[in-house]
């Protein structure tokens, strides 16, 4: 059924259709609307979710951990500093192997305090053991949230899933959207049936016991194996989702990559801008293409290397500063993935769009201009650069 919803409303609607057992709810811009819409569904009796209002995000994630361990399906939504305040619990959720689903509406981290979109919040949590899936637009935000539970819950995965979208750009902009019927959604996600849970009286369960050195590493290997296995599961769920929706999803989306010589690698809503710029460049004969990373954790390294193998120059665009002084997190992953190729494209990193700094099609065209020069001269120039900021120096 067709509708027009903001990204937040679309995710809240997906939550309503899922009808989870528990929501840990705490507001923070720009994700506030998600628990707000959901509270209305609870008040109107449209869901029978236990809606737990808490005093902080540390507690909302604690609620989710306790509920999921008890055998319930638990969800939450947050942004920016809220995610940062959950940091300790993110690791607990993942290492206790509790497949909680979290809507992360990406926003810059303080400070200086800023409420607009970038990926510094979820990128800061990239090594916490959560599966991370990013949306380009409202439709993907809705679809990804519905796919999250079937991805995270199977016994060989058992990992929490962070379903991300760009703050305001996606969360607050109203777009046309195709919604699934509620019974189709419920049938798709099915019942949550963990083998063991706290409320199962047959075998009392201890969750998160103290793990001494002779055991801890083995448990981390188990967790790492689950993350590796998640890749195949994500593809499997994407195929199943295509059958009910007609929309198919992989680990990343390749846009006009068949014969691309110059390519971008980026995450999130900027993909829409990049596609428009690429269409324009294609009209004048530039072989431009885009790889939009959908799944950042597990990182599709081998698949990405194959996708970029035929290109000559690639710009990896990071919407977060890693402060590594060696490029952003997406750049680090991409460069690492390309190392195993016999013949690698030239690679540059562009950190852009921090704290909601706008990126236009002209900016993307300039990036392709830089890539075209690199492809001709074989000189990358500075590899780790910023874009869209004011400077006394000329910026490419």
């Amino acid at each position, binding site marked *: 059924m067709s509708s027009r919803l903001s990204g937040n409303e679309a995710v809240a609607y997906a939550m309503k259709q899922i009808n989870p057992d528990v929501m840990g709810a705490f507001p923070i811009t720009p994700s506030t609307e998600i628990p707000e819409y959901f509270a209305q569904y609870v008040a109107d009796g449209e869901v029978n979710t236990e809606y737990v209002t808490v005093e902080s995000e540390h507690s909302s994630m604690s609620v989710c951990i306790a509920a999921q361990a008890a055998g319930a399906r638990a969800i939450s939504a947050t942004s920016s500093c809220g995610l940062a305040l959950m940091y300790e619990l993110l690791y607990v959720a993942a*290492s*206790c*192997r*509790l497949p909680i689903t979290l809507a992360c509406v990406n926003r810059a981290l303080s400070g200086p305090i800023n409420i607009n979109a970038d990926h510094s919040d979820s990128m800061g949590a990239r090594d916490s053991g959560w599966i991370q899936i990013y949306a380009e637009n409202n439709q993907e935000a809705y679809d990804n949230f519905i796919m999250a539970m079937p991805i995270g819950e199977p016994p060989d995965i*058992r990992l929490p899933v962070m379903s991300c979208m760009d703050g305001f750009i996606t969360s607050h902009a109203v777009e046309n959207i195709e919604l699934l019927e509620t019974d189709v959604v419920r049938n798709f996600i099915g019942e949550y049936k963990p083998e*063991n849970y706290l409320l199962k009286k047959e*075998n*009392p*369960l*201890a*969750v*998160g*016991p103290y*793990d001494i050195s*002779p*055991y801890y*590493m*083995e*448990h981390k*290997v*188990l*967790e790492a*194996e*689950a993350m590796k296995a998640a890749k195949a599961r994500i593809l499997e769920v994407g195929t199943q989702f295509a059958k009910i929706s007609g929309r198919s999803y992989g680990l990343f989306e390749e846009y006009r990559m068949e014969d691309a010589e110059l390519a971008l690698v980026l995450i999130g809503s900027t993909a829409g801008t990049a596609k428009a710029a690429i269409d324009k460049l294609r009209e004048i004969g530039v072989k431009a293409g885009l790889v939009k990373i959908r799944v950042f954790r597990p990182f599709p390294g081998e698949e990405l290397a194959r996708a970029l193998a035929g290109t000559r120059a690639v710009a990896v665009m990071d919407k977060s500063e890693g402060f590594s002084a060696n490029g952003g997190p997406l750049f680090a992953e991409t460069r690492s993935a390309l190392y195993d190729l016999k013949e690698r494209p030239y690679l540059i990193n562009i950190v852009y769009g921090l704290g909601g700094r706008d990126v236009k099609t002209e900016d993307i065209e300039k990036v392709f201009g830089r890539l075209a020069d690199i492809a001709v001269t074989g000189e990358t120039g500075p590899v780790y650069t910023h874009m869209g900021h004011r400077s006394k120096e000329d910026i490419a």
Partner: protein
Amino acid sequence: MIYAKDINEHSPWQDLTPGGEIYEPGTARAFNTGTWRTNTPVFHEEACKHCMLCVPFCPDSAIPVKDGKRLDFDYMHCKGCGICENVCPFPAITMVSGGAVK
């Protein structure tokens, strides 16, 4: 189901439970924590009147009782805190330095 009795410090990762979760109660019994001890209580049975004061004071339930009489210490779980010696009204418990059981 993986049971605690089937897991030890030599088990490969494939044989452990996800997140280290435990599916039975009371598994601490199987775990030797007596190695943490730096002082050790010695039980002098001839001086013991079996008043049972030491038993509830033991924070680790390391004093077994059978047929109304306390037995020697459960050194697999005793941490050597010395509370038993402190509450004993008789010279039935003395603490010695070191974790080894004499």
